[in-house]
């Protein structure tokens, strides 16, 4: 049964967002703890809409500039994957740099496995076209294109990232399989139903309008194709809870400023948005325990001599970003921040 969803605009304002919908019990397979949190729609007047539009422009510009400035630094220290590593929970072994790189590859493989893409060879062969939404410098695209022998097209708001991604592809002799352009994930420059795999690895947190973001992902995925969203969320709200606690919201707000993030949502919110489209096999999981070693490792690398020098050279956005990292650890420790994966399939 389809859940009806009133337009949910989880937008970039400091007002607590809310949307109302009825989520009827469905026969969809989804394994996350179901939350019956209901939220009420805020109606927006013209002024508010205009303000939101301008702030969306400002956010887009901020994101582009942030990544223009910091991508080089990240690549120098961590390589071409700009996402968390996947670790065994409670792994206390302090990993080497290569251990962390391996964990980042494992994150890709675990995501593919969770979504069912790599369950059998027949499934894998069907993947001919991939879109990498929020592609960074193209680490995922190049990996996935290689793995599946498919074509991958990546989109990012940052021209610096797009250029670097294309250069790396050429250097790795993958230029024929992957390409990168500057485009907006909320207005993807593609016709409907083009991609067998729609990949969003840690880009969802930047999207100011989660409903529009999900709409676009669903629009561009081909019948039979899969959507994989791996993203930072806040914890699911409990029954009757309308919003996060003020201290929790405060913590997230401080992170939002330096990382150019709009309002956060929960894994449940994504599930509900997907449920409002006719999709199959909607699944989600909380991988917060599997990413725990990541931020401490990033901080350690930032505090090395090389890290500090590079930070100072990069600029204020990078420095502020680095100073915000302990807040990420605090957020995870206090159960406010969750690392979630949400996947689904479009029916044939």
């Amino acid at each position, binding site marked *: 049964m389809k859940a009806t969803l009133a337009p949910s605009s989880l937008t970039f304002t400091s007002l607590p967002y809310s949307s109302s919908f009825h989520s009827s019990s469905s026969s969809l397979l989804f394994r996350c703890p179901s939350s019956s949190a209901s939220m009420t729609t805020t109606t927006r007047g013209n002024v508010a809409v205009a303000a939101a539009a301008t702030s969306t422009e400002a956010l887009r510009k901020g994101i582009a500039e942030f990544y223009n400035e910091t991508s080089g630094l990240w690549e120098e220290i961590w390589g071409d994957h700009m996402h968390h590593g996947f670790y065994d929970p409670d792994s206390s072994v302090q990993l080497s740099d290569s251990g962390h790189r391996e964990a980042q590859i494992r994150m890709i493989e675990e995501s593919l496995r969770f979504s069912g893409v790599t369950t059998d060879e027949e499934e894998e062969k069907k993947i001919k076209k991939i879109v990498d939404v929020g592609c960074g410098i193209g680490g995922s695209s190049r990996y996935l294109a290689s793995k599946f022998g498919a074509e991958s097209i990546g989109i990012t708001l940052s021209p610096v990232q797009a250029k670097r991604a294309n250069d790396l592809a050429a250097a790795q002799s993958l230029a*024929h399989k992957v390409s990168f*352009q500057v485009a907006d994930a909320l207005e993807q420059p593609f016709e409907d139903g083009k991609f067998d795999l729609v990949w969003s690895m840690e880009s969802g947190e930047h999207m100011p309008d989660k409903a529009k973001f999900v709409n676009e992902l669903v629009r561009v995925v081909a019948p039979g194709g899969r959507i994989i969203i791996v993203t930072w969320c806040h914890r699911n709200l409990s029954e009757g809870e309308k919003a996060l606690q003020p201290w929790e919201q405060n913590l997230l707000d401080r992170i939002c400023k330096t990382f150019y993030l709009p309002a956060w949502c929960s894994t449940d919110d994504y599930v509900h948005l997907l449920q409002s489209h006719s999709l199959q096999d909607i699944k989600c999981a909380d991988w917060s325990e599997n990413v725990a070693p990541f931020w401490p490792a990033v901080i350690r690398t930032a505090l090395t001599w090389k890290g500090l020098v590079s930070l100072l050279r990069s600029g204020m956005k990078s420095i502020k970003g680095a100073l915000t990292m302990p807040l990420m650890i605090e957020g995870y420790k206090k159960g406010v921040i969750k690392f979630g994966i949400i996947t689904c399939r479009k029916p044939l």
Partner: protein
Amino acid sequence: MRLITHNMLSCNIKGVTNGFPLRIEAGNVIEKEVDFNPDFIRHMFAKLEWKALVEGARSMGYAELPEDSPDAAVLESDESFLKKLHHALLELHLEEGALVCPETGRKFPVNKGIPNMLLHEDEV
């Protein structure tokens, strides 16, 4: 930007129903050699929008592709055709120029080989 990418891009301005294919205004086109991989070309053929490819190639100065999409059988037998397809899809680079929406005429700039498909506020 190569034609393999152009074959996927369309104009997403609000209200536009005919945003594909984008017309190419070629400013600077360069040729970069890419290793010929016949299997990859055959693999890609099925999902190509042929007319868009032919027109795009012509805009970039390459007119060797047939007007009509050939039979799949040609892919197996005719290596010279595969090579032409390989050349058009992968070896022609639009470094500077623009992609033009067929319905609105809106130009999306291409700089240093990268198309900028971002829409303005009044276009969404």
